[in-house]
């Protein structure tokens, strides 16, 4: 135990560099997946057949490819096609695209849960599709969508570790590098696990808060 604390003090600063990158990757891909997911979801519910079919097939393609393969593709294959991305860019792009499929399905479920009478009321005062979405449907859907959205945040935080496979020196990769040069596997990976857990706990509490609020009305 004493040894663990000594190791912890020694490795903590290096691992914090990893934490910083983990946070950058998580937030970056969270934002990207949210925007893309919204676009896919809007296409799905647009009522325009071509758009909704395009979105449905995009979602299925994305869902059918493992994140790690998507990352390899962006980082190792894209340069052959003339597009060179930094490891960090590829990680954010890959995770963002991968998760956009789940976000889209979540958003769509939220939108479709809104009572049809709400849409009719909006139409009956002359609102068009976009105004109905913006003023009536989305503000109500947010409440429904937030709890699962929080869960996606937690999953993305943990899945950001997959960026290590394309050399992004985030928390998991930092840990692995320290462990393989010091052989202190137990200390290092316990520390890494605790740091992921520490970052997850606020998110878990946030989800609980969302769930309570959603249950109120």
């Amino acid at each position, binding site marked *: 135990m004493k040894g663990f604390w000594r190791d912890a003090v020694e490795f903590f600063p290096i691992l914090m560099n990893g934490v910083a990158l983990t946070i950058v990757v998580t937030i970056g891909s969270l934002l990207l997946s949210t925007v893309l997911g919204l676009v896919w979801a809007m296409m799905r519910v647009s009522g325009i057949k071509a758009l909704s079919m395009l979105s449905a097939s995009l979602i299925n393609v994305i869902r059918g490819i493992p994140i790690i393969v998507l990352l390899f593709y962006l980082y190792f294959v894209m340069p052959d096609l003339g597009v060179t991305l930094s490891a960090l860019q590829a990680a954010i792009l890959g995770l963002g695209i991968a998760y956009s499929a789940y976000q889209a399905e979540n958003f769509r479920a939220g939108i479709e849960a809104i009572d049809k009478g709400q849409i009719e009321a909006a139409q009956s005062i*002359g609102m068009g599709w976009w105004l109905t979405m913006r003023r009536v449907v989305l503000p*109500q859907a947010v409440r429904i969508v937030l709890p699962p959205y929080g869960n996606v945040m937690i999953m993305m935080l943990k899945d950001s570790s997959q960026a290590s496979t394309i050399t992004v020196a985030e928390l998991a990769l930092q840990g692995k590098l320290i462990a393989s040069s010091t052989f202190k596997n137990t200390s290092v990976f316990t520390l890494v696990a605790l740091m992921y857990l520490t970052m997850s706990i606020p998110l878990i509490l946030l989800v609980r808060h969302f769930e309570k609020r959603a249950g109120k009305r």
Partner: protein
Amino acid sequence: MIELSDVHKSFGKVEVLKGITASVQKGEVVCIIGPSGSGKSTILRCINGLESYDRGEISVEGLKVDRDAPSIVDIRTQVSMVFQRFNLFPHRTALENVVEGPLYVKRESRAHALERGRALLAQVGLAEKADAHPPQLSGGQQQRVAIARALAMQPKAILFDEPTSALDPELVGDVLGVMRKLADDGMTMVVVTHEMGFARDVADRVLFIDGGVIVEQGPAKALLNQPQHPRTQDFLRRVLHPL
């Protein structure tokens, strides 16, 4: 101002409207009565394009109702609708519900819309509930907010789709009172209702619909007091004397 001529409408294989021809004059109050499933609500929903129709033609002030044409927005701003289940926006206050259309559809100035919104809430007897959210209001209060919301569009006519059917009996009177005042002020109204007393006292004309056709129509008192068609007689007997 509202004309329907030979309107047909099917849901899948079920034909719910089998050739409806009717018209509503400016300032007229027309009640539509009939058994459930007879197509009453569908007629209203076709008039403001919430539902499409298959054959025939509906026009409002000479403008053809086509829910896929851009002109549907004009029709909907001229013909408001009040729903059975109120359909207020639960995430907005009573006042915000009322001014939503004027602000975002008609793009009126905020100050002007809010002032008129408050006046409309006062008109339906809910001035002090302006900042309440719909879930905090009783059904009768919600329906009156919904009427204020419909009025806020300054419509030429209002369609009421069973406006009191979802209300507790003791709250029905408040809503009917507001509607009666509207009628007295000369608003053009088409009301689908089971409130025969309201139809008799307030309506100019009554249409009795059964099986997707107008079985009988005429001046309210005459039709309700001396129905001619056996189906109308049978319906009224059962509604007025359920025991």
